[in-house]
Each structure stands twice: as C-alpha cells, then as structure tokens.
C-alpha cells in the first residue's frame, strides 16, 4: 500500500504536477497568446478532428470485424483474430514508416490512389490513416466479449415474431452492443489524441496544415520554449480529459435507458 503510493507519486504524480508549476511561470497574457496563436489552434483542430474521424471509422469497422470474427467461421479466422492486436504490440515508429511507405505517392497502395487525385501521405488524410491503425483493436476487443455472451434467446424471439434479420440486428442486437462500442470508441479516441510516433512520419508536418498537437509541443521543447510547450500541453490535457469524462458520463446515461 505504502509502496504503491510512493511509487505512484515518484513516477507519475510528481512529474505530472510540474505541468502546473511550469505553466504558472507564464503571465496570463503570455499564456493566452501561446494557446490562441493560429498555429496552436490549427494543431488543436487537426488533433481533435483527425482523432474523431479515426475513432468513428474504428467504431464502424471495429463493430463489423468483431461481428465477423465472433459469428462466422472461415479459414484463417484464429490467425486474423490474433493479428488484430498488432497495433498494441507494434512500436509506433515502425507503424509510422510502414504506413508512410505504403501510402506515399509511389507506394504499394498510394500509387493507385494518386492518379485518382487522392493524396494520403503528407496530408491530414494520412494523419487519419495512422490514427485509425493505432486505435484499431479497441472497439474490436470491447465488443467481442459482449457479442460472445449475448443471449441468443432474444434473437430467436425476434425472428419467431417475424422480424427480418436486419430488423433484429437494428432493434435487438445493436442496442446491446452500443455501450461496448462507445467504450471502445472512447479508448481509441483517447489513444489517437496523444499519438505521436506513427503520425509524424506520414503527416508531412506542415505548420497550420498537418501538424498535430504533440508534435507542436515537441517543436517548442526543441526550441527550449519550455513554458510555451507546457501551456499547450496543459490545455491539451484538460481538453482531452474533459472530453473523456463527458463521453463516460454519456455512456453511463445510456445504460439505465436500456434497463427500463
């Protein structure tokens, strides 16, 4: 107990508290100027927008993948099931260079997209691709166990009452899967917000266009503008924490609605 607390304070809490101390060395107007500069705002917008887009993509496809893996039998299912966790295990820098090489204009996939006028690497679209990769397992892994434990009786009842398969899915199954999907989405979104390694390779990192917030913090640090970096980090931390709390509250409110 005592050890847990000591360790936690040494490794986590003390470092975290320095954010507030360091930000406090800025005057209010300096603080304001740092966080409302066009470059910072553009980075905030890109980080939240791309994380949201990637989270939504993962929610839809994660649900589909969980469904396919849990309900259908096909060759290679076990192997694919195991590989879904790859983004958890693969170092982000490796993911970054692989995705960039793949989606660059001369890459295996990029060369087919380029003639169509779709540029992925070095654009905000590339940021979304990288964030989708890192968040991919979350929805699959939160929905899968719920799907496995669902009572088939309700589905049978719906079918015997004349509901079509799609109607059964929408009215009976989807409401039961939604909380888990939302949890997975929140986790994927949170992970995507802070992601750095996989994004910096594919983003091209142009200020105002494809520069994510963690990168901007990194740049400020390299300029030894510690206070500026901390101010951005503080706002970013608070914004992401409050978003997560909001989503968690929302999912809490969704649960009793179903129990009624």
């Amino acid at each position, binding site marked *: *107990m005592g050890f*847990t607390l000591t*360790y936690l304070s040494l490794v*986590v809490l003390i470092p975290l508290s*320095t954010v507030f101390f360091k930000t406090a060395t800025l005057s209010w107007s300096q603080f304001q100027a740092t966080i409302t500069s066009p470059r910072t705002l553009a980075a905030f917008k890109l980080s939240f927008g791309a994380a949201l887009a990637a989270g939504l993509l993962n929610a839809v496809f994660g649900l589909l993948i969980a469904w396919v893996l849990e309900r259908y039998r096909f060759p290679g299912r076990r192997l694919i099931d195991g*590989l879904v966790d790859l983004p958890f*295990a693969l170092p982000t820098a*490796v993911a970054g*260079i692989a995705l960039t090489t*793949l989606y660059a204009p001369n890459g295996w996939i990029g060369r087919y997209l380029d003639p169509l006028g779709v540029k992925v690497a070095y654009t905000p679209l590339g940021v979304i691709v990288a964030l989708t990769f890192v968040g991919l397992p979350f929805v699959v892994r939160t929905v899968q166990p719920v799907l496995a434990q669902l009572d088939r009786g309700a589905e049978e009842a719906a079918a015997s009452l004349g509901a079509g398969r799609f109607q059964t899915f929408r009215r009976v199954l989807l409401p039961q899967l939604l909380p888990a999907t939302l949890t997975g989405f929140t986790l994927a979104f949170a992970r995507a917000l802070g992601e750095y390694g996989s994004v910096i390779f594919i983003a091209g990192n142009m200020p105002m266009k494809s520069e994510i917030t963690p990168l901007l913090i990194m740049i400020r640090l390299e300029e030894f503008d510690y206070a500026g970096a901390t101010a951005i980090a503080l706002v970013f931390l608070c914004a992401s924490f409050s978003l997560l709390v909001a989503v968690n509250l929302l999912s809490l409110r969704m649960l009793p609605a179903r129990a009624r």
Partner: protein
Amino acid sequence: MAAPRMDPLTEPRGVRVALIAVAMGFLALFLFVPLVLVFVKAFEKGVSAYLAAVTEPVALQAIRLTLTTAAIAVPLNLVFGLAAAWAIAKFEFRGKNLLLTLIDVPFSVSPVISGMLFVLLFGAQGLIGPWLYEHDIKIIFALPGIVLSTLFVTSPFVARELIPLMQSQGSEEEEAALTLGAGGWQTFLRISLPKIKWGLVYGVVLCNARAMGEFGAVSVVSGHIRGVTTTLPLHVEMLYNEYQFAASFAVASLLTLLALLTLVAKAVIEHRAGAGIA
C-alpha cells in the same frame, strides 16, 4: 415441425461473404499489407545488406540500450503492478477509485507530454535541473531519463492486468491459508501467485513490448545522440529520415518480430489460461 428453409439466426450466405470481405479488406489495408511491407522492404537490398544494417555498431548499441531499459523498467513495474493490484483487491480503503484512476493516468497522457514532464523536472531549465548540473548528474539526454520516461509510460500494464483478476478471485483462499498457520509471504508464494500466474505473465509481456517500442516519450528525453542515447525505435527514425530506407526497415523488422512474438505469447497464455491451468 418442419425444419426452416433457412436458419433465421444467421444471414444469407451472400451477406455473410460480403461482410467478411469488407472486414478483411479493411484489415488488409491497415494491418496485413503494412506488416508484409516491413519485411519486404527490409530485404529489398539483399540478405547481406540486412545483416549489415542490424549488426553495425550503432545498431548494436541501440539494441543494448533498448534491452537495458526494458531490463530495468519491466521488473520495477512488475513489483509496482503486484503491489498496486494487491492493495486494491485485498484491502478496503477510502479513495480506492481515485487510486484506480491515477494508475490509469499514463495511458491517457500523450507520450510526448510524458517525456516533457521529465524534461521539466530534470532539464537544464527544470525544477531540479540546475542542482543536478552542479553535481554533474545527467538524467535528461542520458540513460536515467530514458528509463524514467519508460517507467512512466509502462507503469499501468501489469497493474491493469492483475486488478480485475485479483478482484474477481476474492481472498477466501488466502484467509484459509492464514488461519491454517501460513505466514504472509508463504501465503503469497503458495496461494496468490499461482492463481494470478498467467495474468502476471501477460502483463509483463505487454509491458515489455511497450518498453522496448516506446517512441514519443523517449524521443523527448533522449536528445538523439547517435550511438549513445538512441534506442531501437529512435534508430529506425534516424535511418528513415536519412533516406536509408532499407536499413531503417531492417531494424524495424527486429521490432516487428518482437511484436509478433508478443502476439504469439498472448495467444499461448490465453490458451493455457482458458484450459483451466491457472
């Protein structure tokens, strides 16, 4: 009753095939093709170029640094994870939920911000940086900084695995052992440890994978001094930024192998735990 023409609890064959195809297509675009690409690019210039890339002195140093970091960070976080899970699962106290939240904090903090925290503490302009400078202690841009930021980032892994496991198991068996005269340490070794064995191994495997692969946090504190403070992921980045793509992917393939090994270990652990060995 006559057998129904079609099982009402599943979809028509066409729909099933289409759903599988869409799911696999998505996975292929985002997972399988990138995975294959790493190995293809790594061997693009031949096996000898591959071997040269992974055995050059700077690469070897990066491997050593990465192994050293993991060798320090993983055992420390193992002990922390055990202690934290023990405290949360076996005792009742106020602020338990707060403690749970705090344990999770590193998961929701951006790696770059995690690294920044240590620069703020120990850097030249940091809180205790000047004092460290006077006493010639180097933390930032040196091994201690890399280890500390890795510790921060990987601290929740073992605890997160063990807490739900130990909570669901309760403490009746431990209490029985204690009443039968076993000491605290003996109870832990004989009763508690075997029960959580697989969860523990799994947590360690995940913790290790992250410790060896951490990029953002380490990137901030390392200073990128070639051959001194570059871990494997940083080495990959530097080679890539110098347009040495084949060498970069060669080193990256080592990390990819580590990731695949992690997944295999996970599958094996789940299989054994599922077979009721735990």
